[in-house]
């Protein structure tokens, strides 16, 4: 996909002024934020589950090679073919080779963010394979030729009326704005695709080392049809998604839906262990799992490793005041919100996403709600440190910071500067003490006043009081 992360600020400005998007984003608060809080409150041992989930993810990452090898061994024993993809290009190559090998003309897909990283649909279409997204949100986006704006609710940026317009234009059926009718319409269009596809492509929320299985959580039922109807099933996921045991995965599945969609459990939790066996009534004849690195292993053993704990619930973005304001597209690549601001520069290069680590107030609402306790603000700060070390910040910012830090270490000079600054700003504030335009800080004053200082610094006033003995009781 086209990466536009370097234009975060300008895209954000457009998104802030988009009334449809703003109306759509308001739903996050009621649907996801409130819902998550309710689902978490239902658990009397939530903190213990969260600790256990974090420990499971850490244990998997600390022994990633061991568990991945165990997964490969157990999956292979079940008849699954395991592929290792170092890059996104490797993923596309492997899938296209499989499509050629099995004579695939059509592939159905259930929702997968890793394949967004790969731009797999484009690669398959270039190879002559028709690709049909079957998750309702992803299907809508495929029609609209747009990328997802949220990792769990990919079409959260669209209102119902926008979807109605789109369906009317693309399906050529009478317009409806009733959600149940829109869903039925999509279902009717998708049904023949499910039945005629040669290959089903899914992600995997987890891969289980102990059993050699992949697991997906879904709500619409499309996942089951994609994994069981076509002859070939290809599951594609990141290497970090491995979990040691089936019991471990149940702990994680207790948290993922509560944080992602405010559900106690998703409508479907599907575990796939090997292809169809003799006597099985359903299932793919060929099951391939592609384990993708694409930058993940770079985080191992380094100060960013905690990011690999991520289970892709989306709670961090749902709770982020910045995401709530600008939506996912502004972030410019696959992953938005706080987790995206860590992953994007890490996976595609710091210089391509310079703004993202800074696009946070550090309110830490994301860190507080993360089900696997990823310290997202700390990771964003580390990325800021790396930018600073490599001189990637604009020279004005660097010079300003250096000057300020230099002065702040020199109390006498700093006192003079503060005294002067307070007096000048107080004068600028005028009688009503409101600075309406402050050159050099117009980012602040464009849509806000800058409250003017009292005029004399604390330090000055304190010294005066000391001298006059006012503060002596």
């Amino acid at each position, binding site marked *: 996909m086209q990466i536009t992360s370097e234009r975060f600020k300008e895209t954000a400005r457009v998104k802030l002024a988009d009334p449809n998007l703003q109306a759509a984003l308001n739903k996050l608060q009621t649907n996801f934020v409130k819902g998550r809080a309710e689902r978490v409150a239902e658990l009397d041992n939530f903190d213990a589950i969260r600790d256990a989930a974090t420990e499971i993810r850490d244990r998997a990452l600390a022994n990633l090679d061991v568990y991945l090898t165990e997964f490969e061994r157990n999956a292979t024993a079940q008849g699954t073919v395991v592929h290792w993809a170092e890059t996104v290009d490797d993923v596309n190559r492997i899938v296209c080779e499989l499509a050629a090998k099995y004579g695939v003309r059509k592939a159905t897909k259930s929702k997968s963010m890793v394949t967004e990283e790969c731009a797999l649909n484009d690669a398959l279409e270039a190879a002559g394979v028709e690709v049909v997204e079957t998750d309702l949100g992803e299907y809508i986006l495929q029609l609209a030729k747009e990328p997802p704006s949220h990792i769990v609710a990919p079409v959260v940026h669209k209102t119902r009326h926008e979807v109605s317009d789109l369906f009317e234009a693309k399906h050529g059926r009478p317009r409806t704005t009733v959600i149940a009718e829109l869903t039925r319409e999509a279902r009717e269009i998708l049904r023949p695709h499910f039945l005629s596809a040669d290959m089903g492509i899914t992600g995997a929320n987890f891969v289980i080392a102990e059993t050699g299985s992949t697991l997906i959580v879904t709500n619409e039922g499309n996942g089951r049809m994609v994994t069981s109807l076509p002859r070939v099933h290809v599951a594609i996921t990141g290497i970090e998604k491995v979990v040691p045991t089936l019991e471990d995965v149940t702990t994680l599945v207790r948290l993922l839906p509560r944080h992602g969609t405010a559900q106690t459990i998703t409508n479907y939790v599907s575990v796939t262990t090997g292809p169809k066996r003799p006597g099985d009534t359903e299932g793919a004849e060929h099951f391939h799992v592609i384990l993708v690195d694409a930058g993940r292993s770079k985080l191992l053993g380094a100060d960013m490793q905690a990011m690999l704990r991520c289970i892709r619930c989306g709670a961090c973005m749902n709770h982020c005041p910045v995401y709530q304001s600008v939506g996912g597209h502004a972030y410019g690549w696959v992953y938005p919100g706080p987790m995206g601001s860590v992953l994007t520069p890490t996976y595609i290069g710091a210089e391509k996403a310079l703004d993202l680590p800074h696009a946070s107030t550090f309110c830490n609402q994301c860190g507080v709600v993360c089900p696997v306790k990823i310290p997202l603000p700390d990771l964003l700060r580390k990325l800021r440190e790396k930018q600073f*070390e490599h001189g990637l910040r604009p020279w004005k910012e660097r010079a300003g910071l250096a000057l300020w830090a230099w002065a702040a270490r020199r109390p006498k000079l700093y006192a003079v500067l503060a005294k002067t600054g307070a007096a000048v700003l107080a004068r600028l504030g005028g009688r009503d003490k409101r600075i309406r335009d402050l050159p050099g800080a117009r980012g602040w004053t464009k849509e806000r006043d*800058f409250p003017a200082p009292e005029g004399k610094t604390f330090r000055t006033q304190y010294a005066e009081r000391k001298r006059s003995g006012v503060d002596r009781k």
Partner: protein
Amino acid sequence: MKVGLFVTCLVDLVRPRIGFAALKLLEGEGCEVVVPQSQTCCGQPAYNSGDRASARALARKVVAEFEACEYVVAPSGSCAGMIRTHYPDLFRDDPDELARVERVCAKTYELTDFLVNVLRVEQVPGRFGGTVTYHDSCAGLRELGVKAQPRALLGKAGVTISEMTQPEQCCGFGGTFAVKFGDISSHIAERKCEDIAACGVDAVVLGDLGCMMNIEGRLRRRGDTTTSVLHVAEVLAGVGEN
């Protein structure tokens, strides 16, 4: 009890009366308050901009200025949170210096936290007759657990709080974020102001000057010239605007 008052650079520059309110509250409780005159900034702007070296230099300066005090108190959850929860990270590679820094961290408190949990104050000098809503600033809330303390103290000042629908939602300040991403910051502030406006109160009270300036600046720009934006110390000390 010897208490070092960390005024904070923003209070020093913009709203000294918050510093004097804190001074009054602490002295009123019998503390011997020292105000090191060489203090400038806790270093948070450098730390959050990725400049660890400058942040460390300023952290060393704060530690040297305040380590002789029994307690360090700041009228800011953000600055107290910087010292208490982030200074150790700055010295994680130097065990000797870390030990010294951690001694200061352990005795550093946000003002209302200190008044409630260390001094266990029974009464406060201020009385406030108007209606109030309270904004929970992020660092105080999520780094230091400041939530009940200011509300308990405001209760002693006769204040009844009319809560916002989302008092814990960030106001959009975020330090340099407010200037670097002014459009987004203002947008977040606007939503906070809508929440405040819906309370129909005389004042919004909070414990961090950065957030105060952001909220006040947006309230005034949107045409609200009557809702006061007050620091909790001002209300508790009864130190009004002029």
